[in-house]
């Protein structure tokens, strides 16, 4: 099934993404996950195939909208079968939009274009060891000294942070929500270091890093927007990030379902295939229903976003619906695979671990509910 908003154009785009992922990702999916990294050159290849700059304005070398980005991302995941690789390739989707929206032409030229050409890697750093859900608790300080900010603090759980060339970093320049500011910190800036590549449950092919800032001197011209504009910029970013994460959930579940259908038709027990049991067929049908429902809501979120009326609360509903569905479907997929579903060489084992991130990253399930409750005035 595809999204209701899709046109022939999206179908052709899907075909390109599928071909790219089949040739460039799928043959290495397992190996890259085990190695905990995919080659840097993949960003360039992806840009060459016209897939890296989808959803960005033409003024920075992009094309299309979030709908194009979402379907291409789905096809990359379905055909490439590596969630980790896809989220690593996509980390700029949260790092660049604030620069595009609030930055100067010079910043777009220096930071955005090279990333969309696949020459540089971008990451977004909000989370800190002491502040996750509570974004206003960010404690990394930036103190202005002449034409520099002196930054001290640490960030953690940063996707693509380990090898990022540019990190859109949330720092504190004052008190409260209004005291948060965005700085682009470039790799190689003295005092800035990716201190650790973290070991994690899933998303193995994507690096997740701990970053440290020790009297790191960042030029003032790397400030994105005004001082104090950071919080609003991050909140605007969350809507698209959550729609994209929800899209990944739909794609992950769809893949788990496909793998399960194929396995159920092949694996034999008690003299018939697993799909010969009504219990299995119903399980697959149930998974399919839930995927369809989540897909419909993600599609609605995208269409409303394109019409300019996607609220943060709607994005939160979309995200929770999709993550809950994905958790359920990946769990059932492992169950259908039996012991093989618990083995590393089976795709669903990986998807089960990959899926666990979604109710946590990009705003937890509880924070989403909090947002909805507030918006609806309970």
């Amino acid at each position: 099934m595809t999204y209701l908003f899709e046109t022939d154009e999206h179908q052709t785009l899907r075909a390109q993404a599928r071909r790219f992922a089949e040739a460039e990702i799928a043959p290495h999916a397992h190996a890259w996950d085990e190695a905990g990294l995919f080659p840097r050159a993949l960003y360039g290849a992806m840009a060459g195939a016209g897939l890296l700059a989808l959803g960005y304005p033409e003024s920075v070398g992009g094309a299309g909208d979030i709908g194009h980005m979402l379907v291409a991302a789905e096809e990359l995941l379905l055909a490439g079968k590596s969630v980790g690789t896809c989220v690593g390739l996509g980390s700029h989707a949260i790092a660049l939009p604030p620069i595009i929206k609030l930055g100067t032409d010079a910043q777009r030229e220096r930071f955005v274009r090279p990333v969309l050409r696949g020459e540089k890697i971008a990451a977004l750093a909000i989370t800190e060891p002491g502040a996750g859900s509570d974004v206003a608790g960010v404690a990394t300080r930036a103190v202005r000294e002449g034409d520099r900010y002196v930054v001290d603090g640490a960030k953690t759980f940063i996707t693509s942070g380990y090898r990022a060339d540019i990190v859109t970093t949330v720092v504190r320049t004052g008190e409260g929500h209004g005291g948060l500011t965005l700085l682009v910190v470039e790799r190689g800036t003295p005092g800035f270091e990716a201190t650790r590549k973290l070991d994690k449950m899933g998303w193995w092919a994507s690096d997740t890093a701990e970053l440290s800032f020790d009297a790191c001197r960042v030029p003032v011209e790397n400030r994105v927007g005004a001082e104090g504009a950071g919080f609003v910029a991050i909140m605007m970013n969350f809507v698209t990030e959550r729609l994209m994460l929800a899209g990944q959930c739909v794609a992950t579940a769809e893949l788990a379902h496909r793998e399960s259908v194929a396995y159920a038709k092949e694996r034999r027990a008690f003299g018939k295939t697993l799909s010969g049991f009504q219990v299995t067929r119903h399980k697959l049908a149930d998974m399919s229903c839930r995927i369809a429902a989540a897909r419909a809501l993600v599609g609605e979120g995208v269409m409303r976003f394109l019409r300019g009326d996607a609220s943060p609360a709607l994005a939160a509903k979309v995200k929770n619906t999709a993550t809950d569905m994905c958790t359920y479907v990946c769990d059932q997929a492992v169950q259908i695979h039996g012991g093989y579903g618990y083995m590393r060489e089976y795709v669903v084992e990986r998807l089960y671990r990959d899926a666990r991130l979604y109710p946590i990253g990009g705003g937890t399930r509880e924070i989403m509910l909090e947002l909805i409750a507030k918006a609806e005035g309970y």
Partner: protein
Amino acid sequence: MKILVPIKRVADPDNANKVKVSADGTQVTTEGLEWKMNPFDEWALEAALRLTEDGAAKSRVGEVVLVSVGPKEAVATVREGLAKGAERGVIVEGNDNDLDSNVIAAALAAVAKKESPDLIVMGKQTVDGDSNVAGTVLADKLGWPIINYAMRIETSDDGKTFAIKRDLDVGVASVKVTGPVVITVSDSILHPESVKNGVTPADFKYPEAEGGRYASLKGIMQAKKKPIAEQTLSGLGVDAKRTVTYKKFELPPARSGQTTFVESVEELVEKLRTEAKVL
């Protein structure tokens, strides 16, 4: 330079397990199949696009006309070719079951006579019929030379003459030919430096991509506005008939899926010889 590139939509070879034969065995049924451009035609299209552009400046300097003989639905395949950079398309409507290489070649010859291209670049075969003759029959009908299995094409006079290397089992044959000509290509034509047109800088290297370039979203959007002319076999004055008729289709027997474990290479060779009987 004006190039005609015939393309066909075929059942996606990766979905070949979905191919079914009708109950009476007279035809292959196509319901539920996913379609894509014949992979050999993708190579031909890539070669034609390289011949008609400045690859470094990413600008077009010639014209590529796509022609597909087949059902109306082939328009999606033609659009994909336009999205990759071709200028226009022609669809000659025909039911796949009424077509064979002879009818296709006659239809292509009729289109070529109307379009007068400098050359025709095409796949050496399709992955469904695997007949491997349409190019040669087309050249015969037009009275043009045929150069099969081109792995390298060079022109320095905008397509009046070509230096071509042919990819043969026994080695590489180098030929010079004066257009118009029909060329079929091998997959080596996708090599980063296999096409030289005298416009793209001589040291320019195309990126490695199995199947040639990808259609960008911008290209996909522009393709919607590019013209696709609709023709019919009778409208083109083609009265060629099938010269090949298929008597019966059968699916190959299902593989047993039985796994045999072996301890050594010797045992493997022995089993391949005595049990699988493939050596």
